[in-house]
């Protein structure tokens, strides 16, 4: 996300296909790319979706290295997501192990693998679509294209932008706790105390920001103009159609090979 890691060169080389797509379309795409996967737990649909999405990385303008780097937490945690399913899914097929309420069966193994894959299939589009979305463009899109109330859109985006400042505060607070003799132990307690101070800073800075915005005429009853136009183009149509096709291919393949499994069925 550009808010946390400002990519200085991004503005200079925003030439990928995805850069010409309106952020609002990307939000829609995220819904398109996740709902069908949430409706089924099977390994085929997730695998197909991931394969197609990876093949389309060059169109996204995200460096492969960045995709890999940002996928690390996904890859690390996806298997853990399967554990609960492995132990507590309704047993079916051959039973491999059983203790107390936990039962590892053919069904639960299949579900666990599917859940782990699904975690990855759900996470990947977020990385590909939103690594380069600019908060200001997003605000412009939400207000001008999606027609959400501008007071809310701009207020929220401006507030969210304060995120970058919190990172420095957090680092300083960590050092300050070491300096004050309470930095040796009690990680959890220290976390909560720092999170609290972060909240104090956040609220106060937010109040000041609100005043600064009002001081510049924000929130008054004047009809607002927009310095940057935000509109949809043919690219958005092609892009969304493409996303629908990815999901159609993924679920279609799963149905075709008979692995499609509607949640709860």
């Amino acid at each position, binding site marked *: 996300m*550009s*808010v946390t890691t*400002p990519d*200085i060169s991004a*503005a200079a080389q925003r030439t990928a296909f995805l850069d010409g797509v309106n952020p609002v379309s990307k939000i829609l795409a995220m819904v398109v790319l996740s709902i069908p996967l949430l409706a089924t737990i099977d390994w085929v649909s997730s695998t197909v979706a991931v394969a197609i999405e990876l093949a389309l990385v060059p169109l996204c303008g995200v460096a492969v290295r960045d995709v890999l780097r940002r996928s690390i937490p996904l890859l690390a945690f996806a298997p853990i997501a399967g554990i609960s399913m492995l132990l507590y899914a309704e047993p079916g097929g051959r039973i491999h192990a059983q203790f107390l309420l936990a039962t590892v069966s053919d069904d639960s193994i299949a579900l666990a693998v599917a859940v782990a894959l699904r975690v990855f299939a759900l996470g990947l589009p977020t990385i590909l679509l939103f690594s380069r979305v*600019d*908060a*200001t463009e997003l605000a412009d899109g939400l207000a001008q294209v999606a027609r959400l109330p501008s007071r809310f859109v*701009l207020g929220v985006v*401006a507030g969210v*932008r*304060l995120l*970058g*400042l919190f990172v420095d*505060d957090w*680092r*300083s*607070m960590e*050092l*300050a*706790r*070491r*300096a*004050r*003799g*309470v*930095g*040796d132990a009690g990680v959890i307690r220290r976390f909560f*105390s720092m999170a609290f*101070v972060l909240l*104090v*800073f956040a609220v106060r*800075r*937010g109040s*000041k*920001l609100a*005043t*600064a*915005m*009002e*001081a*510049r*005429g*924000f*929130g*008054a009853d*004047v*009809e*607002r*103009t*927009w*310095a*940057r*136009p935000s509109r949809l183009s043919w690219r958005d149509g092609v892009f969304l159609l493409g996303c629908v096709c990815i999901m159609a291919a993924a679920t279609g393949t799963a149905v075709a090979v008979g692995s499609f499994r509607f949640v709860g069925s």
Partner: protein
Amino acid sequence: MAGGARVVASGWGWRHAGRKAWAVAELSFDIEAGERVLVLGASGAGKSTLLAGIAGLLGGDDEGETTGELRIDGVDARSARGRSGLVLQDPDAAAVFSRVGDDVAFGCENLGIEREEIWRRVRRSLDAVGLGVDLDRRTAELSGGEKQRLAIAGVLAMEPRVILLDEPTANLDPAGVLDVRDAIERTVVREGTTLVVVEHRTEIWADLMTRVIVLDPSGGVLADGEPDAVFAQEGDRLAAAGVWVPRHPIGMPLALDAPAGAVVLEADGLAIGRPGAPVVRSAIDLSIPQGHATVVVGPNGAGKSTLALTLAGLIPEREGLLTGAPSLAGRRGQRPAQWSSRELLTRIGTVFQDPEHQFITATVRDELAVGPKALGLGPAETEERVDALLAALGLGALALANPFTLSGGQKRRLSVGTVLASRPAVMVLDEPTFGQDRVSWIRLVELLRAEVAAGTTVVAVTHDAGVVAHLGESVVELTGASQGVALRGRAA
């Protein structure tokens, strides 16, 4: 072009919801178009409230009640938004968007100005404040002074007839202060805009101002007139209330070029940088003498704060070695970065630039007790140290107050107190006088001088020429080049 507006208050007052006392009461004045007014007064006299009132930010949404009238060119200030532009103290909290151009355009958009005109105004106002950066430049990458000029450009683009500045330079280094002042002077003088400034560092603005209004904390106006006349009449009273009155001596002896004793901290070929960030300065050879006050000066970006954190043992050396005196050796040797957090307490204490970063409890008393408790001192001794400090810091009446609710000066003294409570051999301070008014500045520097006299080693990173003059027994200068340091004699 825009020209100025007339600002008239008649019996105006404002009380915040839930408060008994009026923030501003019975205020009357008449500011002519194009006048340049400095508003002064003791803290709590309602200066910021007045500016917010002129900016039309008060009055709605159950936030308080008002009396009298406050008018801009005859229009009630609340319906005159856009005629005035307010710049606040904290430039970090003023940037709305992440890119410079968008941020300047924000106010114009809110006024419903056409797109082409908006971008014309954006370029013009950035020129006016001398901020020659790319429109796509990230606001977060600007220095404090640049951010503040960006905020001013955002206000100028709205072409206000009154510019209001609320402590615009309190968070800036000296270079940033000058840039901001020059930017304002250029515009205001050329356009004839009315200017109202609240700032306790009056020397910055005194030359530019045509009038000074002093608010009375109990309501109304204490003095109103030409700057020289008001300073002559009210100088002593203003100084006592914390205002930096021009040509008003501090009355404190200069620091002497005291002979340096044994070395307590030694840097040898030191390279410094925050973890994960590039090295900001290398090849630093430096000895910090014991029981002596060393001040570190240098321009922004020279690595002063990073050096302070490294000397304080909070971040590790990137190259080279920082060694404490043998008497300070901890369980893991003489390198401060390897001392445990508890070991640091009695060896090196650090006062951070923002005191709030180091507050961890809900009352002033608990805050002072953190160090002694971490050292494992008994309740009796802890109590004794805390009580002594409360008295020394002038915070006795606030012992049960929440640290975050203190004034800027009180917060700063408390942060120094938390360090003193564990009686470290060395004290490292980062910009200790930042944003302090005259009264708390004097208290603070006197406190530090007393510590040095009592044998504590003090290292202070500062932009403040007053700190250098009155505290710095030796001066270390970080030059523009990214290598080494220079020792400067007291005479410089």
